[in-house]
């Protein structure tokens, strides 16, 4: 099959650090709660990098996520950054993001990050309410969260983002608005506001099922979603993706956007996913499995898939509809030989008529109400 000629820009590099001090009850990321293997993992990462040498164009973003990357000591981080620079070429003006846990960072640590070239910080705040933080099983409290943001500002970071969670069982809208207001008062560049989702087998979900506590109704979830969007946009943030808000387009996560428009990315570390030219692959979801394979010089890939044009089209549809930019119609039709306006005219008329989508020059964009049902719209259009 001929792959679509699609090259939206330089690739991104992601490194997954699968270690946490303790597991949060709601978390479905891959990480282990013992640090025992962290040192050998750090030795293995450069070996994995060497398996990919010269396979990617120069990267323009680096994102160190997890897990909890802030568990890595600054000396070790320095070694890691050197290894990265040795293994891969980068464009100038690269975006370098690291995720940090509020209880791990102090001014010295943050200073060190700055000097290593980190220019974007993502702090896992989750809430400014101690009761909620403990319900979620976080190891920090609200004061730690403030302190971390303040220290980051003091260290000179101007591109700071925090993660927040809403839709906690029993949570009222007013309480969430309180957390939002506190976040707004920090006047930082980026906010990620995630509705709490509990996947099957996740401890908090099982706990809630036993105790009979309920996640908010769909109606309330919608209210949380719309209210968040409304408040943050009024405060000058752009609601640029379902859960992401930035003070100006230039503050949107350049790295994360790559996931939503089929830009190539390389993911290193256990469970990391990679994508390039219609092919996606992912690493073993086990630190041991990962290290065993690296140990014998084999790439630690667990599985891969080659997407058909139809699959790519479906992805482009549901990913595009998650973002403020929406779907660029001329690009879409040249990539997929599918003129949405023509082929889906009736459906689009209905969707625009009901206020879910707008057609704005060359873009098919979700409205706020449309973003709330982006999955439903994708399936409606796809079928």
């Amino acid at each position, binding site marked *: 099959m001929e792959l679509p000629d699609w090259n939206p820009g330089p690739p991104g590099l992601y490194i997954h650090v699968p270690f946490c001090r303790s597991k949060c009850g709601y978390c479905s990321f891959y990480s282990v709660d013992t640090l025992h293997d962290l040192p050998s993992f750090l030795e293995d990462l450069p070996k994995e990098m060497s398996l990919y040498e010269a396979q990617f164009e120069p990267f323009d973003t680096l994102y160190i996520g997890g897990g909890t990357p802030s568990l890595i000591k600054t000396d070790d981080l320095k070694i890691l950054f050197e290894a990265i620079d040795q293994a891969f070429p980068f464009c100038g003006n690269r975006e370098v993001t690291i995720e940090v846990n509020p209880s791990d960072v102090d001014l010295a640590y943050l200073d060190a990050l700055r000097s290593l070239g980190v220019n974007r910080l993502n702090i896992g705040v989750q809430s400014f309410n101690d009761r909620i933080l403990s319900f979620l099983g976080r190891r920090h409290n609200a004061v730690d969260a403030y302190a971390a943001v303040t220290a980051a500002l003091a260290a000179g970071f101007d591109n700071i983002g925090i993660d927040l969670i809403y839709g906690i069982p029993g949570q009222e809208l007013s309480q969430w608005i309180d957390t939002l207001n506190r976040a707004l008062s920090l006047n930082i560049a980026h906010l990620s506001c995630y509705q*709490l989702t509990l996947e099957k087998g996740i401890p908090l979900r099982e706990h809630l099922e036993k105790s009979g506590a309920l996640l908010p109704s769909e109606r309330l979830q919608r209210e949380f979603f719309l209210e968040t969007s409304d408040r943050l946009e009024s405060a000058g943030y752009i609601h640029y993706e379902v859960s992401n808000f930035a003070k100006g387009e230039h503050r949107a996560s350049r790295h994360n956007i790559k996931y939503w428009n089929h830009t190539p990315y390389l*993911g290193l570390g256990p469970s990391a*996913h990679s994508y390039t030219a219609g092919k996606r692959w992912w690493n073993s979801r086990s630190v041991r499995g990962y290290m065993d394979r690296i140990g014998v010089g084999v790439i630690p890939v667990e599985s891969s898939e080659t997407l058909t044009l139809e699959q790519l089209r*479906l992805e482009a549809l549901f*990913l595009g509809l998650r973002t403020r930019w929406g779907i660029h119609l001329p690009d879409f039709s040249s990539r997929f030989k599918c003129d949405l306006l023509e082929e889906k005219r009736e*459906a689009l008329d209905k969707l625009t008529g009901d206020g879910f989508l707008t057609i704005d020059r060359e873009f098919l964009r979700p409205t706020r109400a449309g973003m709330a*049902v982006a999955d*439903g719209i994708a399936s409606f259009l796809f079928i």
Partner: protein
Amino acid sequence: MVRRAGKEKMRQILMDNIRNFSIIAHIDHGKSTLADRLIQYTGVCTDRNFQEQILDNMDIERERGITIKSQAVALPYRAKNGQDYTLNLIDTPGHVDFSYEVSRSLASCEGVLLLIDAAQGVQAQTLANLYMAMEHNLEIIPVINKIDLPSADLPRVLKQIETELGLDPEGHLACSAKEGTGIEEVLEAIVQRIPPPGGYRDASLSALIFDAHYDAFRGTIIHCRIFDGSVKAGDVIRFLSNSAAYKVEEVGHFLLSRQKRDRLTAGEVGYIIAGLKTISDVRTGDTITLDARPCTTTLPGFKEVKPVVFASVYPIASDDYEDLAVSLEKYKLNDASFIYEKDSSAALGQGFRCGFLGLLHLEVVQERLEREYDLSIILSVPSVRYRFTLKDGTVIEVDNPTHYPDPASIVLSEEPYIRSSMMMPERYLGSVMKLCMEKRGINSSLHYPSPSRAELTYEMPLSEILFDFYDRFKSVTQGYGSFDYDLTDYRPGNLVLLDILVNGEKVDALSQIVHRDRARARGLQACERLKEEIPRQLFKIAIQGAVGGEIISRTTISPFRKDVTAKCYGGDITRKRKLLEKQKKGKKRMKMIGAVSIPQSAFLAVLKSDSS
């Protein structure tokens, strides 16, 4: 059964070492399990390849735990007298909807094992099947099964055999098919009591087609019983009904799979493969003879099937109409009780009107069509056959609500009635009577075949049985009741057409003809069921029930307003896409009415009174 082969003077032979018999019983009394034991005892199947109810080889039979198709298997058996026998066993279904299978099997037999569950005793289909066997003059061996059950009550069952079945209880056998006790006695009784088949081996071929199936490689495969003469590969056979002639490629017996043989001879049951590509040439009940030396008389064949439930079937994608047509033809080969003809619907396009022997039969046909022919189909709401007398004096029969005549032209509406017969332990009597009254039952009668068992009969409109009767009967009798019915006559009824509108569009496949007094309740129920079955969508969906343009019930399905997942990064994309792909597959089983997707299940669900 001895048949004279014209004036030809020939020696009638008795195939002394062959026995042809069926196992018949009420549903679940253990026929297939007994067949298992006989198969194992005679070593037809190694233990390694064995699975329970081995003859129930269709997926749908295994999933539902019931037999749907009769299944023949030849068992080699060395009797205590030292002689070797071939015992041709036919396992039959017990459910009343498949009684046509039983009746056709009996035409190939000289005897039956009439199984009776030691705990449940004689039930409706025990009697019905016994009468069928008697009509065929077959030797009847009553076998009491499940004697291992703690609730087994042998003295009671023996009494029932005598009083209710009118058989000599002396001749009964007792076994536990599950535990394998009493099996040898059953085999010996088959040899000693069931007469060997007779026939004129040297006469011209006369064979009865009792079943058939379509094989993608070999074409139509005929299942037949040879009454006279013999047939072998190379012979040219002819069907008496249409004179179509074919050259035989292969003949053989049914073991667990087909076993090729040199020839099939009078008295034997087996198959014929003859490069039959024109499916419609083969008719169950037809007589096969040899082209070179035809027999002169046609075998009596089978009673015509009388479908009682009707529904239309449509392909979900209209492109699949031709596929559906071919598949129905092939399907019918293997289900002689299924009938169909062309039909079309304003909402669903080209399709076929089909007749079924009951609701279970209808469900089975739907499932088999989807599984065996990989079709996605929609079935309209099932209906019985009504009768209308019009002003101009013509009388029309309508089994399809879309053909409901102009109400102004109707002078008399009539609907089919049944005489139902229900057996149950006495303690359920009250709740069953209540149910029957709710179902417009009249003229009841009650008697007690034995002290604690009640037999209740009611006259009821057949349409009431379609509408959620079985499930409720089962639940009020906690599974201890049995139900059987006969169509009796047509009686006047005040009938109206109930239409269903989805977002203002009439969906003719959801229309029902109902009694006027029931219209409002049924309209409400239909709306409620549809509300449960139709998934919430991006848009509001209005569902209405209407009689003659007047809206009598309504409900709305509110749209979903928040469904997007919070996170969609590198690791989430594949999962999300697979989910949508799965949904798309699911939608293949839905029909789009305007912008609304209606799942296949909705069409049958309107007949249920609640979601249980």
